[in-house]
């Protein structure tokens, strides 16, 4: 009986966790994007089959844009090593303990004298765990300060809202912050410090591929720092339950080679680009007519409100609605028309009265804001 039980448990344990160890991530090269980033809905059975196949592969592997098992930064790497070591130890210990009870209860019952059994309590219950856990504790404690080293370069203020992110870049030696939203770009190989705050409720800032998380409080500042190594696109998500649309409070974290990052940041500091094509010009008029500027900022235009996300360079982002949708024209149109359906209780109103053509114009205006 116990045999089956132990076997069952062990197999499960190995099947689930062994997979994680075996599949160390393949070496990723620069700008190699790990895993698919959700952009569009699948269409047709064939696509679904592909998806399922992809998922099976994902299960066997550990890749995914939000996976802590494929570290892409110094901090995540340290924690990954800690985890895999502990996992290995845990599996061995689990097998030892449960195998032990099975062996001596079924194969060799009453093989133990009372004195030997007493020693088992002393050694198994006190001595061994005290030493092992003590050693583990020392390891864990020495890792602790690394996750909080103060950055000496770039600082990013991230302010949690229900359910999106205000982002302000403060590169060293510049005066004002560079405002953005819902996407965080980081230079590879440098340590960036995050200063985290929140508006009304508690959120938590987390990019699994780069490192651990930190809560964001109203009325209190918390800090953490990350040092990403592998350029690529990763997904971050709010980890602290924050209300109806907690599930849809995500963002994209883009790690770039340092030079590219510097160039991008310079561009990001600029004002919004005026519309180039006809449809975009029409879109701009719709933007004005519908009063979008009452909530959103487009630097360099009359739209300066700060209720919602800054849209000055929304055309550069890979997702909209705080990671809710991709950033295609269709996605933008879908979002504007169906905000509440896509994101329950979101503060931005839906604009169901806009004609499809109007939506397309608006989308192409926004998409053009590079």
């Amino acid at each position, binding site marked *: 009986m116990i045999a089956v039980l132990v076997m069952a448990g062990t197999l499960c344990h190995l099947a689930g966790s062994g997979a*994680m160890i075996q599949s160390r991530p393949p070496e990723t090269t620069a700008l190699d994007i790990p895993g698919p980033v959700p952009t569009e809905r699948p269409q047709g059975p064939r696509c679904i089959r592909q998806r399922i196949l992809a998922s099976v592969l994902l299960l066997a592997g550990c890749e995914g*844009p939000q996976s802590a098992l494929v570290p892409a930064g110094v901090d995540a790497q340290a924690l990954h090593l*800690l*985890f895999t070591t502990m996992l290995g130890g845990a599996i061995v210990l689990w097998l030892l303990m449960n195998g032990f*009870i099975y062996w001596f209860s079924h194969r060799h019952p009453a093989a133990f004298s009372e004195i030997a059994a007493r020693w*088992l309590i002393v050694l198994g219950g006190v001595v061994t765990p005290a030493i092992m856990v003590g050693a583990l504790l020392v390891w864990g404690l020495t890792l602790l300060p690394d996750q909080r080293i103060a950055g000496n370069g770039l600082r990013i203020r991230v302010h949690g809202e229900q359910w999106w992110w205000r982002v302000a870049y403060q590169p060293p030696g510049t005066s004002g912050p560079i405002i953005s939203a819902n996407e965080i770009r980081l230079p590879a190989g440098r340590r960036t410090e995050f200063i985290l705050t929140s508006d009304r409720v508690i959120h938590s800032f987390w990019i699994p591929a780069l490192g651990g998380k930190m809560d964001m409080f109203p009325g209190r500042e918390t800090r953490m720092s990350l040092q990403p190594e592998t350029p690529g696109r990763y997904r971050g998500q709010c980890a*602290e339950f924050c209300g109806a649309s907690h599930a849809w409070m995500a963002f994209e974290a883009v790690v770039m080679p340092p030079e590219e990052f510097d160039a991008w940041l310079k561009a990001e500091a600029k004002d919004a680009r005026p519309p180039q094509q006809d449809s975009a010009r029409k879109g701009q008029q719709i933007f004005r007519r519908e009063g979008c500027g009452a909530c959103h900022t487009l630097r360099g235009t009359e739209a300066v409100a700060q209720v919602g996300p800054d849209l000055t360079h929304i055309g550069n982002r890979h997702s909209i609605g705080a990671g809710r949708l991709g950033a295609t024209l269709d996605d933008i149109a879908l979002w504007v028309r169906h905000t509440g359906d896509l994101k329950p209780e979101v503060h931005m109103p839906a604009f169901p009265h806009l004609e499809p053509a109007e939506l397309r114009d608006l989308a192409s205006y926004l998409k053009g804001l590079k």
Partner: protein
Amino acid sequence: MIFRKPTPIRRPAPEGPYPPTRAMLDEPVPERLRAVQAARLRKAWESPKGWRYWSAVNNTEVGKWYTVTAFFFMLCAGLLALLIRLQLAVPENELVPADRFNQLFTMHGSAMMFLFAVPIFEAISILLLPGLLGARDIPFPRLSAFGYWCFLIGGVFVLGSVLFDAAPRAGWFMYPPLATEDEGPGSDIWLLGLSFIEVASIAAAVELIVGVLKCRPPGMRVNLMPLYAWYVLVVGGMILFAFPPLIAGDFLFELERSFDWPFFDPERGGDPMLWQHLFWIFGHPEVYIVFLPSIAIAAMIVPTVAQRPILGYSWIVLSAVGTGFLSFGLWVHHMYTTGLPAMSLGFFSAASEAVVIPTGVQIFAFLATLIAGRIRMILPMLWIAGALAIFTAGGLTGIMLALAPFDFQAHDTYFIVAHLHYTLFGGMVLPVIAGIYYFYPFITKKMLSERLGRRAFWLIFIGFNITFLPMHYTGLMGMPRRVFTYPEGLGWEIPNLISSLGAAVIAAGFAVFLWDLIRSKGDQPQIERNPWNAGTLEWAHDVPEENWGMRSIPHVTTRYPLWDTPGFLDRVDTGRFYLPDAPEGRRETLVTSVIDAEPVLVQRVNTPTWITHLAAIFAGGAFIFPTFHLYTPAIVSGLLAVAAILWWLWTSTAWPPEADSKDAGLGLRLPIYVSGPDSVGWWAVWITMLGDATAFASLTFGFFFYWTAQPDFPPSEALHAGAGTVGLACAGFAAGWALTVAARQMNRHACVGMARAGLALAALATAGGIAAMIVAVRPLDPTSHVYPAVIWALAVWICAHAATGIIMQLYCLAGSLFGKLTPRYDADLWNISLFWHFFMLSALVACALMGPAARML
């Protein structure tokens, strides 16, 4: 004034031979006497019939209702979990809308914790403890009945809210500001409904602690106690210190929600972190409160299975006590990601790792016992073995999570969901089911089905691993907890689908188990008396069932009397031991001393009544009306509850008995009435007040928390409570205390008139104190800033206690006037002066905080 020379009144002490000699125990009891005694005993303990059955207070009835109710709530919470799994089976599912989903997981967690995990411990303990201790009943049967009815009312209220789409939806941890700002009654239902249940939980804990300390059979010294009793003691103590911080937190929280006092509002100096501290100071011990009783069940099953005494009895006791302590030093590991200094995290990381050791000792003591004996793989053991396999896996992930850096990644992800379910299924659900299989014959005198039991086990065990093992992986793949849906493409689809399928298998397992429980067993013969051949006292039960618990209360000299003491059952059955008779037709049980269980007293316990129902209904009203902001009905209901409780106490407790002492059997004469530390009532007050003091300490912790965390607390220009009036209040309370204690002494020395005058004056002085305190805080506006709000909260707390103190003083005064309280029979006065000692201490602290401390800090 002339003082009469004190004339202490003689109080009877136990008289007669103790412990009983072999010769005394060997002497046969005449057949006819036996029959007459049994008949009288049966009559005294008869359960009410027909609809009056529901007025029963006997532990066997109340325990059964309690267990069934808690189990029912568990099934409901399980259904909510199934809905959760259904929603998460596929990405972007639209089955359950976000708001509903948030209600579902909030209620799943809250109900499992507050309506199942803790109550089932109390239910099973109420049901089993008297049997384990060879007692007739627990010391305060009406209190446990009251607790049960409160639990039922509160549980139905809280859980019922799901049906009206009005359930709490901010998570079972209710973090402000999300929960404070939440619109609708959800958060209030959580706060008030569960506070109500927590009060009932504390009542049960008090009762169980007193039961273990004072109601053991003669001779059962602390080193002979069944391990279950040790665990009850430890867990009861933990409830006593863990629940009050939450109650204090609830108190502040509800003040913020109802009256806008900004305890957790950062804009007015408040701090949401205070709630996190108070909640987790409760929340982590809670985990062990849930876990230890299940270990206790295993500790009863393992020796029976191995057919040998437990190995490492002292080790297990030490682990229970050690775990109880350590569990209070872990709370910050739920707050690793809140940005506390690394060193602070380090302390709690250390404590979280240290708790591994006592937990491991318990597991290894079981292993040692099993391998040193010969295991019979009976059905309960199968469940225990499964529990061990699952729990060790959960424990090992617990060791990982206790390390703060790893928790930075895993915190609030499905890895945690997996971990906590591994610990709770392995450390609670499976052992409890094992316990149900093991004790079912004790409770119903029938057996559950071996075949169905094995099927249920394998379904639940396999289903569990299918559901929760992949969740470790899902979590590390980045899936946060409490998301109502998720996008595809993140690698979460397959593991979520597997988990959902597994949940269906678990549900099937529970369905089999449930069927086994409820199917008719009318045609099945009654069991033999000790079906597992266990060695502990509870298996001396009577088959067919008798309500008296034990035919006679045995003298115990070993841990396993049924194995070790020849002729033991015969002596119990023939009424050779103590209290074999009920000549006055009263329900009685034996009270013994704390360490060595020497007989002290014959305790009269209470009979069926409806007053507990009334008290529970009115108390329920006092908690439930405020959720809908109906304050007048709430106050009326509260006053009626107080009246009902006073009526209950007045009519049925501490009346002078018809004689000073009575024959307890085996030549021993024991008093029937004692007061002070020998009595169970005094212990109950002592223990209750310990919990009350803990709640007050949590409030003062709040004061110092703000002072530490906020640079300007108290604000430099803040208006303080009037120094003179606070001093006056303090003087009033001090006078009330001194006069109460003096009244007790005078009454004891037969100066009845002076005692009455003292009580009357004490009530007046206390009332003066209340008035002064109200005047002191009147100028402060509690909605303006957290500082005046804290001062007001302290004042409200102290005044409410002072008012309770006045009621007690007047109750004793009335008792003295109407002959309930005399110089000889003065238990009430002893009990209230104990309350007053504790109250005086908290009043002093509160006044010091409101007066000098607030000005100096």
